[in-house]
């Protein structure tokens, strides 16, 4: 019912659009199929322009109509589509819990998943419970995660060896004292919003949790009052309570304000992402490729099984919607996203880590920071951040702000986290 009405509405809308732009309309009957793709343009507008051109070039029977929505407004647009089971043919969600929560909107790939994703390093973030033997709902093509960037000039000025950045928690603390004495911020940080909570939590959690623990976190079966989790929160708190970060951290955003502190050379370290933006490429441009160092977050317990691994996660996952009437074309498009051609576009225009193994190595950047990242990501493990439900991520971010301002103890924070877990509608059903 709705669908037919919508189709009518869309046809009318397109006719109007065709009239307005003076272009000829598509005849749905025998002309090319038009796919509506809902995206927040991860990787930037330029990359998505290239995707459209390249894909349409090799698929004359399919046209892409990009429905670009700003990232921070995406849930408000996508939510109504899902509840009304109407809207675009292809949509995106971040890999992990965000996607699993919305799995009802997507067509399961079934046994085609392995074939489509055969050249990808990993695609488990698109599959239920991070298990590729279970149902998969879409296709990722980018790889994401956090590293610690550092400014060699600031380290040198503080009397530290820029070729040997701190590797343990204690060394990091000592380095921060030296940097502070030299009059700079140690770790550039902005705690407003959930980004830093998402980003930094897994880097600490790796020292206390196993992969099974992380899966239990996803299933809502690991209590936040568990001593392991309380320790994670305690170390997270230390980052700010020990004075390693800039003082106004609770009230500024990480992007762009926190990252800008690092970018203008006022901080020794910044923990940000490897793909998209605020990465090796942007920092290299601002500070000079030779001044930019990359390292793993310092280990709290170097003997922990995951301490030396990389908490990696696939980026945006694109899937075909349940209600699409062009499922075949949609499938063709998302299969193409996993391919070599798009992998190379992603490297070139998205400035990111490709998931596709067959991408021409000659295209990869030669920046030393990028090469170091290549080395780090070679040992991946699960990313604990994307296991957090909305209420948990929110409580983590707010709790960290309050702990930093001295309004909350770590134990109370753990209580609040547990309450947030119990409030999460999407983790309740997992029990």
């Amino acid at each position: 019912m709705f669908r037919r009405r919508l189709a009518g509405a869309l046809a009318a809308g397109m006719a109007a659009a065709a009239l307005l732009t003076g272009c000829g309309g598509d005849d749905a009957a025998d002309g090319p199929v038009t796919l509506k793709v809902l995206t927040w343009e991860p990787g930037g507008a330029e990359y998505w322009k290239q995707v459209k051109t390249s894909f349409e070039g090799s698929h004359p029977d399919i046209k892409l109509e990009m429905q670009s929505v700003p990232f921070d407004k995406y849930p408000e647009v996508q939510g109504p589509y899902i509840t009304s089971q109407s809207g675009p043919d292809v949509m995106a969600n971040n890999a992990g819990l965000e996607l699993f929560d919305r799995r009802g909107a997507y067509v399961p790939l079934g046994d085609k998943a392995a074939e489509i994703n055969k050249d990808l390093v990993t695609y488990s973030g698109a599959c239920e419970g991070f298990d590729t033997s279970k149902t998969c709902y879409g296709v990722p093509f980018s790889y994401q995660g956090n590293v610690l960037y550092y400014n060699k000039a600031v380290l040198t000025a503080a009397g530290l060896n820029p070729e040997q950045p701190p590797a343990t928690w204690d060394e990091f603390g000592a380095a921060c004292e030296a940097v502070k004495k030299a009059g700079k911020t140690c770790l550039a940080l902005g705690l407003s919003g959930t980004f830093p909570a998402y980003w930094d939590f897994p880097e600490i959690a790796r020292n206390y949790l196993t992969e099974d623990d992380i899966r239990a976190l996803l299933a809502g079966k690991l209590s936040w009052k568990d001593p392991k989790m309380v320790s994670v929160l305690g170390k997270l708190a230390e980052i700010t309570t020990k004075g390693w970060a800039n003082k106004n951290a609770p009230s500024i955003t990480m992007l762009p304000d926190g990252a800008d502190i690092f970018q203008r050379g006022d901080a020794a370290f910044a923990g940000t992402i490897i793909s998209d933006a605020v990465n090796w490429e942007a920092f290299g441009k601002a500070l000079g490729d030779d001044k930019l160092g990359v390292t793993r977050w310092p280990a709290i317990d170097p003997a922990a099984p995951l301490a030396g691994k990389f908490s990696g996660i696939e980026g945006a996952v694109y899937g075909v919607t349940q209600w699409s009437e062009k499922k075949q074309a949609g499938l063709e498009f998302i299969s193409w996203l996993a391919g070599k051609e798009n992998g190379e576009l992603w490297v070139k225009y998205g400035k990111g880590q490709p998931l596709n193994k067959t991408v021409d190595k000659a295209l990869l950047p030669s920046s030393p920071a990028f090469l170091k990242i290549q080395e780090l990501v070679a040992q991946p493990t699960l990313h604990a951040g994307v296991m957090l439900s909305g209420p948990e991520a929110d409580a983590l971010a707010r709790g960290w702000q309050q702990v930093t301002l001295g309004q909350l103890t770590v134990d109370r924070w753990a209580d609040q986290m547990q309450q947030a877990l119990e409030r999460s509608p999407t983790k309740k059903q997992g029990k």
Partner: protein
Amino acid sequence: MTISTAPVSDPVATDAPPAPTRRRRPGHAREWWLGAVLVLPAVVLAVLFKLVPLVRGVVTSFESSSGFGGSEFAGADNYTRMFDDPMVLTSFRNALLVVATLPVWIVLPLILALLIHQRSPGWKFFRAVYFVPYTIAPIVVGIMFRQILAPDGPLNALLRFVGLQPLAIEWLNGRYSALFSLVAVALWSFFGLGVMTYLAGLATIPEETLEAAYLDGAGFFRRLWSVVVPMLRPTVAYWSVLCASGVLIWLFPLIYALTQGGPGDATMLPEYLVFLTTFQFLDRGYGSAIGIALFVFVAVLSIFSVRHMFTEGTRKPR
């Protein structure tokens, strides 16, 4: 007094016309039909785009929904849950704090409008400039003020320069300073609209009447209250209602851009909590319930101010 010589009956809406014109006329029924036709477009708009969604929202608020799965009837669960949820209580407490600033919202633009209206030197320039903040889109207001309110931003630099060192605090970092900074930014955004509204109201008052009220120096405020405000009553009422119903909504994009409700829950307001609960926590039933509670809160607030203004207006026919 010119305007107020009109027989003031019920200023909102007159069911029955004032006594002198109440005569049985054959056109009575026809006039009712005409009225019905005239209000039809507005009623259709209000029903389709506001009331129907509201009723559907009320229905949702009685359901429990797990993410995007199915939903089932949950009775009043979502409503009782609110009373145990510290975040909900904090958000409404913060809303009350915001509401407490309303007198400033109402008086400040009025004074500025009067100064402009009495042709203070450069009034044309001020009139044009004061409106500029309102035209700037909220997304950019947030970006600008993040820089301006920064600990070493221009505001604190200015305060230090004029010797008000102790006032140069971390505006967005404190329990109360963050909320009131947000309110101040919103006031900055909207005071020009208030000035403009008052100027439009002042334009309906004859010059001679106002001139008597304008003055140099002492007695300004006394005459302001006794002469100008009574004449401007409809405009003051309009602006008060606009502020009362709007202030919480106007703060939403600023919360989004500046604090996201933080630090902690210091700037959490109901509208933002509805957004978080509905779209980030995927708890649509509970989000709707908080939304309905907010609707009641704002309705009570505005209806109170509407009623107050109009009973005042009817009591003193001049």
